[in-house]
């Protein structure tokens, strides 16, 4: 019976519609869905939380002091007393790893966030306004990129002096230009897209187009840039610390630990391995989490 068949078809269409509309989700539903579909992202998230907790609770997790030397037990191999061994000053490696996480996590996240803000703001303005504004911003970015970033960071650190706030500033100033470039390129593409045109047609102002139409569409790229910037920041900081311009010893940061451990790579390899593995883990965790977030937050990538 054609009538009944048609009815069934319509019902099926209704059902499909329902399930599509059913995807209307709040933030926590999204998170729950990510948890269901992407175990790696959940694992990464847990790992990041654990690392943050470990950093915050460091004094309660270890009996040792991060800076007190014990020259009788220099460079001792991992044992029950020192799970990750000791460094060249006889300090417990695990303890320093935990305290170093405080610095390294901050160094990873804060400058990445700041450069993302600064870079995307300048990038979208340059791309959308064009003309002289574009030239000013992008030539500044070019000059920034033309210097080897290490040299630039050294110059800035040298003139600002040490300390963690100055490290933040330096790392931001070194990495904003890349973000600005990428965002500008995206803006140029998006600004000629039909939906921006449609927004202009109903009288939306330039500022609002940048804020509401262009930047949200750059978000997936920004998220990826963010996860890439975190390891870059951690590594740059380690080099700066190595040169004596970043975190000052005896305070610990992972980068600094690798650089001091480098000298003992053959006699005490654990000094490099432990902080190296920590950096690798945190970087991977942020990357996987970024990917997972991307999957659920970008409405275009929703599963059918």
């Amino acid at each position, binding site marked *: 019976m054609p009538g009944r068949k048609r009815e069934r078809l319509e019902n099926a269409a209704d059902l499909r519609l329902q399930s*599509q*509309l059913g*995807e*209307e989700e709040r933030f926590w539903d999204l998170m729950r869905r990510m948890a269901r579909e992407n175990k790696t992202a959940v694992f990464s998230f847990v790992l990041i939380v654990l690392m943050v907790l470990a950093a915050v609770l460091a004094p309660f997790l270890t009996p040792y002091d991060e800076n007190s030397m014990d020259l009788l037990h220099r460079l001792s191999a991992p044992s029950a007393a020192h799970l990750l061994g000791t460094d060249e000053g006889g300090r417990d490696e695990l303890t320093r790893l935990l305290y170093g996480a405080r610095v390294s996590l901050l160094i990873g996240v804060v400058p990445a966030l700041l450069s993302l803000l600064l870079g995307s703001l300048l990038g979208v303005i340059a791309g959308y306004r064009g003309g002289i504004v574009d030239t000013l911003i992008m030539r500044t970015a070019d000059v920034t990129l033309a210097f080897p970033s290490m040299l630039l960071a050294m110059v800035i650190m040298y003139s600002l002096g040490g300390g963690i706030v100055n490290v933040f500033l330096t790392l931001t100033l070194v990495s904003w230009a890349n973000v600005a470039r990428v965002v500008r390129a995206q803006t140029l593409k998006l600004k000629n*897209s*039909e*939906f921006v*045109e*449609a*927004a*202009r*047609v*109903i*009288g*939306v*102002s330039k500022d*609002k187009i940048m804020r*509401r*139409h262009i930047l*949200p*569409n750059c*978000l997936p790229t920004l998220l990826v840039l963010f996860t890439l910037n975190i390891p870059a920041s951690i590594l740059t900081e380690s080099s700066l610390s190595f040169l004596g311009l970043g975190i000052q010893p005896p305070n610990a940061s992972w980068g600094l630990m690798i650089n001091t451990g480098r000298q003992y790579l053959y006699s005490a390899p654990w000094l490099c391995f432990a902080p190296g593995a920590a950096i690798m883990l945190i970087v991977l965790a942020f990357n996987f989490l970024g990917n997972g977030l991307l999957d659920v937050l*970008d*409405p*275009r990538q929703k599963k059918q």
Partner: protein
Amino acid sequence: MEEKILDVRGLTVCFQTAKGTIRPVDDVSLTVPRGSIVGIVGESGCGKSMTARAVMGLVRYPGKVTGGSVLLDGREISALPERERRKLRGSEISMIFQEPMTSLNPVMRVGRQVEEAVLLHTDCTREEAKARVLEIFREVEIPEPEARYDCYPHQLSGGLRQRVLIAMAAVCRPKLLIADEPTTALDVTVEAQILSLLERLRDAGVSVLLISHNLGVIARVCDYVFVMYAGRIVEQAGTEALFERPRHPYTRGLFRAVASLREGGDALETIPGVVPNLLHLPAGCSFSLRCASCRSDCERRLPALAETEPGHKVRCFLAEEGGAR
């Protein structure tokens, strides 16, 4: 005489290119009477869309409106500063595009996109704005407006998206809606629905300037038609007069190039050649290169847009002399 919502006089758009200046819109004059649907028809690249953009004040660099005036409901708008024009866009004059698939922001809920127009041009609160959006959704026959409000564009079909775009353009009740190939990307059944939607908007007081290369679409809804070729208007007439007695060889060619199921048999005719490069337009009639009835005179002098009968104007020497073949 009926009131004119849109009165464009001598509109000219210039593009400065490396090889010279081109005029994709050359001395175009057209009017849209209140409460009517007026069509612009022509091949790709003949300046239809550029005319629409010039009217909206959205010609992009390096293009520039170099002459003419645009009167919207008797008010000169082409000379207004950008800030003033922006206020008009969306509230008094609005536009919809060919590509419903890409004309909506993919990461913004469609309801919010329509709401944006309301919030820009009125003092509504968010709740009032949302109510108005739902109202216009109902008006453009979007089923389940409440549910659609929270959808993202990719969750909607092409026809629904075009309805959303129309809702976005019409939510503030503009005096004039420019529809630039609104049905080209849609299939035929949806096309018919969208066209009747435009008619209903017309009845609700929104005059429409419909741009299309589809003569069937034009014939169905337009009251008056302008035929454009290479940036100029070559013929203008009431729809009936134009379809019954096309005068310009180009218009006739367009009609012959429409496939017809009824007559059958004959191979589909085409107009030989392509739209000429705007950099190398002939000195005379721009259609002379492709015109079967072209005479030596045609290549040297540009015929004027002359009235052959009341309301019917043609830019052709042959028509002036009492009709081409």
